[in-house]
Protein backbone atom coordinates (compact mmCIF):
# COMPACT_ATOMS: atom_id res chain seq x y z
CA UNK A 1 0.00 0.00 0.00
CA UNK A 2 1.83 3.10 -1.18
CA UNK A 3 0.94 6.54 0.15
CA UNK A 4 2.17 10.05 -0.51
CA UNK A 5 0.33 11.51 2.44
CA UNK A 6 -2.34 13.19 0.32
CA UNK A 7 -6.05 12.97 1.13
CA UNK A 8 -6.66 10.92 -1.99
CA UNK A 9 -3.93 8.47 -1.08
CA UNK A 10 -5.51 8.15 2.35
CA UNK A 11 -8.72 7.11 0.69
CA UNK A 12 -6.77 4.36 -1.06
CA UNK A 13 -5.27 3.36 2.26
CA UNK A 14 -8.68 2.96 3.88
CA UNK A 15 -9.89 0.86 0.95
CA UNK A 16 -6.74 -1.24 1.12
CA UNK A 17 -7.07 -1.92 4.83
CA UNK A 18 -10.73 -2.92 4.43
CA UNK A 19 -9.72 -5.15 1.55
CA UNK A 20 -6.96 -6.78 3.59
CA UNK A 21 -9.32 -7.27 6.53
CA UNK A 22 -11.87 -8.99 4.29
CA UNK A 23 -9.21 -11.28 2.84
CA UNK A 24 -7.26 -11.92 6.03
CA UNK A 25 -4.14 -10.44 4.46
CA UNK A 26 -1.41 -8.34 6.07
CA UNK A 27 -0.36 -4.98 4.72
CA UNK A 28 2.88 -3.15 4.08
CA UNK A 29 2.72 0.63 3.94
CA UNK A 30 5.36 2.38 1.90
CA UNK A 31 6.25 6.04 1.38
CA UNK A 32 8.71 6.91 -1.35
CA UNK A 33 11.00 9.80 -0.49
CA UNK A 34 11.93 11.48 -3.73
CA UNK A 35 14.25 14.35 -3.13
CA UNK A 36 17.22 13.97 -0.85
CA UNK A 37 18.84 17.39 -0.51
CA UNK A 38 22.58 17.42 -1.06
CA UNK A 39 24.48 17.41 2.20
CA UNK A 40 25.66 20.78 3.37
CA UNK A 41 23.58 22.78 0.90
CA UNK A 42 20.83 25.10 1.94
CA UNK A 43 17.58 25.87 0.14
CA UNK A 44 15.39 28.89 0.77
CA UNK A 45 17.47 29.68 3.81
CA UNK A 46 16.79 26.30 5.38
CA UNK A 47 19.77 23.95 5.75
CA UNK A 48 19.59 20.65 3.90
CA UNK A 49 19.62 18.62 7.06
CA UNK A 50 16.51 20.44 8.25
CA UNK A 51 14.81 19.70 4.88
CA UNK A 52 15.68 16.02 5.16
CA UNK A 53 14.23 16.02 8.66
CA UNK A 54 11.02 17.65 7.42
CA UNK A 55 10.67 15.21 4.53
CA UNK A 56 11.13 12.27 6.81
CA UNK A 57 8.64 13.66 9.29
CA UNK A 58 6.09 13.99 6.46
CA UNK A 59 6.79 10.39 5.43
CA UNK A 60 6.34 9.08 8.95
CA UNK A 61 3.15 11.06 9.38
CA UNK A 62 1.73 9.56 6.17
CA UNK A 63 2.74 6.06 7.25
CA UNK A 64 1.24 6.59 10.70
CA UNK A 65 -2.14 6.95 8.99
CA UNK A 66 -1.71 3.46 7.55
CA UNK A 67 -0.63 2.05 10.90
CA UNK A 68 -3.63 3.56 12.65
CA UNK A 69 -6.12 2.38 10.03
CA UNK A 70 -4.61 -1.11 10.13
CA UNK A 71 -4.71 -1.26 13.89
CA UNK A 72 -8.35 -0.17 13.95
CA UNK A 73 -9.18 -2.96 11.49
CA UNK A 74 -6.91 -5.43 13.31
CA UNK A 75 -4.80 -6.02 10.23
CA UNK A 76 -1.10 -6.84 10.77
CA UNK A 77 0.91 -3.98 9.31
CA UNK A 78 4.49 -2.90 8.74
CA UNK A 79 5.60 0.36 7.17
CA UNK A 80 8.77 1.59 5.51
CA UNK A 81 10.23 4.71 3.96
CA UNK A 82 11.85 3.97 0.60
CA UNK A 83 14.21 6.28 -1.24
CA UNK A 84 13.82 6.47 -4.98
CA UNK A 85 13.75 9.34 -7.44
CA UNK A 86 10.78 7.73 -9.16
CA UNK A 87 7.93 6.89 -6.81
CA UNK A 88 6.51 4.12 -9.00
CA UNK A 89 9.90 2.39 -9.14
CA UNK A 90 10.23 2.66 -5.39
CA UNK A 91 6.74 1.23 -4.94
CA UNK A 92 7.36 -1.76 -7.19
CA UNK A 93 10.78 -2.42 -5.66
CA UNK A 94 9.26 -2.36 -2.19
CA UNK A 95 6.48 -4.74 -3.26
CA UNK A 96 9.04 -7.09 -4.75
CA UNK A 97 11.38 -6.99 -1.78
CA UNK A 98 8.60 -7.63 0.70
CA UNK A 99 7.05 -10.41 -1.34
CA UNK A 100 3.68 -8.66 -1.66
CA UNK A 101 1.10 -10.35 -3.86
CA UNK A 102 -1.08 -7.31 -4.57
CA UNK A 103 -0.87 -3.53 -4.54
CA UNK A 104 -3.72 -1.24 -3.47
CA UNK A 105 -3.24 2.30 -4.71
CA UNK A 106 -5.38 5.41 -5.04
CA UNK A 107 -6.18 6.57 -8.55
CA UNK A 108 -4.54 9.90 -7.80
CA UNK A 109 -2.07 11.27 -5.29
CA UNK A 110 -0.73 14.72 -4.74
CA UNK A 111 -0.40 15.74 -8.35
CA UNK A 112 -3.75 14.53 -9.67
CA UNK A 113 -5.04 16.58 -12.57
CA UNK A 114 -8.77 16.12 -12.27
CA UNK A 115 -11.22 13.28 -12.12
CA UNK A 116 -10.94 11.78 -15.57
CA UNK A 117 -7.30 10.77 -15.80
CA UNK A 118 -5.20 8.41 -13.79
CA UNK A 119 -2.41 9.79 -11.66
CA UNK A 120 0.97 9.44 -13.33
CA UNK A 121 2.56 7.28 -10.65
CA UNK A 122 -0.51 5.05 -10.51
CA UNK A 123 -0.43 4.67 -14.29
CA UNK A 124 3.24 3.72 -14.17
CA UNK A 125 2.69 1.26 -11.32
CA UNK A 126 -0.12 -0.30 -13.33
CA UNK A 127 1.86 -0.67 -16.50
CA UNK A 128 4.98 -2.10 -14.87
CA UNK A 129 3.60 -4.21 -12.03
CA UNK A 130 3.74 -7.99 -12.29
CA UNK A 131 1.23 -8.45 -9.47
CA UNK A 132 -2.46 -7.46 -9.38
CA UNK A 133 -3.17 -3.79 -8.66
CA UNK A 134 -6.39 -2.56 -7.06
CA UNK A 135 -7.05 1.04 -8.00
CA UNK A 136 -9.22 2.70 -5.38
CA UNK A 137 -11.17 5.79 -6.39
Amino acid at each position, binding site marked *: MPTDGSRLAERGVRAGVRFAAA*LGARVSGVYVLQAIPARGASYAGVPAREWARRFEAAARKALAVIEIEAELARVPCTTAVVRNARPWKGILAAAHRRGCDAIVIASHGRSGLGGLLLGSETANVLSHSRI*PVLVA*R
Partner: protein
Amino acid sequence: MFKHILIPTDGSRLALKGVKAGARLARAIGARVTAVYVVPPYVPPMYGEGAIYVPGYSVRHYKEQGARVARKALAAVSAAARAAGVKCATRVVYDRPAWDGILRAARGGRCDAIVIASHGRGAIGGALLGSETQRVLAHSKIPVLVIR
Protein backbone atom coordinates in the same frame (compact mmCIF):
# COMPACT_ATOMS: atom_id res chain seq x y z
CA MET B 1 -16.12 -5.33 1.50
CA PHE B 2 -17.20 -5.93 -2.09
CA LYS B 3 -20.57 -7.61 -2.54
CA HIS B 4 -20.92 -7.69 -6.30
CA ILE B 5 -17.97 -7.92 -8.65
CA LEU B 6 -18.15 -7.23 -12.37
CA ILE B 7 -15.84 -9.34 -14.53
CA PRO B 8 -15.60 -8.24 -18.15
CA THR B 9 -14.26 -10.68 -20.72
CA ASP B 10 -13.52 -10.58 -24.42
CA GLY B 11 -13.02 -14.33 -24.61
CA SER B 12 -9.24 -14.07 -24.94
CA ARG B 13 -6.77 -16.15 -22.97
CA LEU B 14 -5.47 -13.08 -21.17
CA ALA B 15 -8.97 -12.06 -20.17
CA LEU B 16 -9.47 -15.53 -18.74
CA LYS B 17 -6.63 -14.83 -16.32
CA GLY B 18 -8.64 -11.93 -14.95
CA VAL B 19 -11.73 -14.10 -14.84
CA LYS B 20 -10.06 -16.76 -12.72
CA ALA B 21 -8.55 -14.23 -10.34
CA GLY B 22 -11.91 -12.47 -10.06
CA ALA B 23 -13.70 -15.70 -9.20
CA ARG B 24 -11.11 -16.55 -6.56
CA LEU B 25 -11.39 -13.09 -5.05
CA ALA B 26 -15.19 -13.27 -5.02
CA ARG B 27 -14.98 -16.55 -3.17
CA ALA B 28 -12.49 -15.19 -0.63
CA ILE B 29 -14.66 -12.21 0.27
CA GLY B 30 -18.06 -13.82 -0.28
CA ALA B 31 -19.18 -11.68 -3.21
CA ARG B 32 -21.30 -12.57 -6.20
CA VAL B 33 -20.15 -12.09 -9.75
CA THR B 34 -21.62 -10.67 -12.94
CA ALA B 35 -19.75 -11.48 -16.12
CA VAL B 36 -20.15 -9.15 -19.07
CA TYR B 37 -19.26 -9.41 -22.73
CA VAL B 38 -19.53 -6.28 -24.84
CA VAL B 39 -20.52 -6.70 -28.49
CA PRO B 40 -19.94 -3.65 -30.68
CA PRO B 41 -23.15 -2.75 -32.52
CA TYR B 42 -23.38 -3.45 -36.24
CA VAL B 43 -22.13 -0.74 -38.54
CA PRO B 44 -22.76 -1.35 -42.24
CA PRO B 45 -19.58 -0.84 -44.27
CA MET B 46 -19.94 2.57 -45.90
CA TYR B 47 -18.24 3.48 -49.14
CA GLY B 48 -18.79 6.98 -50.39
CA GLU B 49 -22.49 7.57 -50.62
CA GLY B 50 -23.91 4.18 -49.95
CA ALA B 51 -23.80 1.20 -47.68
CA ILE B 52 -22.87 -2.21 -49.04
CA TYR B 53 -25.11 -5.05 -48.08
CA VAL B 54 -23.61 -8.46 -48.59
CA PRO B 55 -26.27 -11.07 -49.35
CA GLY B 56 -26.64 -13.48 -46.49
CA TYR B 57 -24.91 -11.13 -44.11
CA SER B 58 -27.36 -8.96 -42.26
CA VAL B 59 -27.74 -7.15 -38.98
CA ARG B 60 -29.57 -10.18 -37.67
CA HIS B 61 -26.74 -12.45 -38.75
CA TYR B 62 -24.21 -10.18 -37.10
CA LYS B 63 -26.19 -10.10 -33.89
CA GLU B 64 -26.54 -13.86 -33.82
CA GLN B 65 -22.85 -14.32 -34.41
CA GLY B 66 -22.00 -11.76 -31.73
CA ALA B 67 -24.32 -13.44 -29.27
CA ARG B 68 -22.76 -16.82 -30.03
CA VAL B 69 -19.23 -15.56 -29.39
CA ALA B 70 -20.44 -13.80 -26.26
CA ARG B 71 -22.14 -16.92 -24.93
CA LYS B 72 -18.96 -18.90 -25.43
CA ALA B 73 -16.83 -16.33 -23.61
CA LEU B 74 -19.37 -15.99 -20.80
CA ALA B 75 -19.64 -19.76 -20.42
CA ALA B 76 -15.94 -19.78 -19.51
CA VAL B 77 -16.65 -17.27 -16.75
CA SER B 78 -19.63 -19.23 -15.46
CA ALA B 79 -17.48 -22.34 -15.37
CA ALA B 80 -14.72 -20.56 -13.45
CA ALA B 81 -17.28 -19.16 -11.00
CA ARG B 82 -18.89 -22.56 -10.55
CA ALA B 83 -15.47 -24.09 -9.92
CA ALA B 84 -14.86 -21.46 -7.25
CA GLY B 85 -18.35 -21.92 -5.78
CA VAL B 86 -19.44 -18.36 -6.52
CA LYS B 87 -22.85 -17.14 -7.67
CA CYS B 88 -22.52 -15.82 -11.20
CA ALA B 89 -24.81 -13.99 -13.62
CA THR B 90 -23.92 -13.24 -17.23
CA ARG B 91 -24.78 -10.28 -19.45
CA VAL B 92 -24.24 -9.35 -23.05
CA VAL B 93 -24.09 -5.63 -23.71
CA TYR B 94 -24.31 -4.09 -27.17
CA ASP B 95 -22.22 -1.00 -27.01
CA ARG B 96 -19.25 0.73 -28.49
CA PRO B 97 -16.63 1.43 -27.20
CA ALA B 98 -16.18 -1.65 -25.04
CA TRP B 99 -15.07 0.22 -21.92
CA ASP B 100 -18.27 2.24 -21.98
CA GLY B 101 -20.30 -0.96 -22.15
CA ILE B 102 -18.34 -2.38 -19.24
CA LEU B 103 -18.97 0.66 -17.06
CA ARG B 104 -22.63 0.76 -18.07
CA ALA B 105 -22.99 -2.86 -17.05
CA ALA B 106 -21.30 -2.05 -13.74
CA ARG B 107 -23.74 0.79 -13.09
CA GLY B 108 -26.73 -1.22 -14.24
CA GLY B 109 -25.84 -4.17 -12.02
CA ARG B 110 -24.87 -1.89 -9.10
CA CYS B 111 -21.48 -3.59 -8.94
CA ASP B 112 -19.05 -2.29 -6.34
CA ALA B 113 -15.81 -3.46 -7.98
CA ILE B 114 -14.43 -4.48 -11.35
CA VAL B 115 -11.81 -7.19 -11.86
CA ILE B 116 -10.21 -6.95 -15.27
CA ALA B 117 -7.15 -8.41 -16.99
CA SER B 118 -4.41 -5.98 -17.92
CA HIS B 119 -4.79 -6.94 -21.57
CA GLY B 120 -7.40 -8.57 -23.77
CA ARG B 121 -7.41 -9.36 -27.44
CA GLY B 122 -5.77 -6.15 -28.60
CA ALA B 123 -2.56 -6.54 -26.62
CA ILE B 124 0.62 -5.09 -28.05
CA GLY B 125 3.23 -5.85 -25.46
CA GLY B 126 3.86 -6.77 -21.87
CA ALA B 127 4.85 -3.36 -20.59
CA LEU B 128 1.72 -1.37 -21.43
CA LEU B 129 -1.85 -1.59 -20.33
CA GLY B 130 -4.55 -2.69 -22.75
CA SER B 131 -6.50 0.22 -24.18
CA GLU B 132 -9.90 -0.82 -22.85
CA THR B 133 -8.48 -1.57 -19.41
CA GLN B 134 -6.88 1.85 -19.38
CA ARG B 135 -10.14 3.54 -20.23
CA VAL B 136 -12.09 1.51 -17.68
CA LEU B 137 -9.53 2.64 -15.10
CA ALA B 138 -9.76 6.25 -16.14
CA HIS B 139 -13.54 6.45 -16.11
CA SER B 140 -14.62 4.02 -13.41
CA LYS B 141 -16.13 5.41 -10.23
CA ILE B 142 -15.68 2.10 -8.39
CA PRO B 143 -12.42 0.32 -7.49
CA VAL B 144 -10.77 -1.63 -10.31
CA LEU B 145 -8.49 -4.62 -9.72
CA VAL B 146 -6.11 -5.11 -12.63
CA ILE B 147 -4.80 -8.67 -13.01
CA ARG B 148 -1.54 -9.26 -14.82
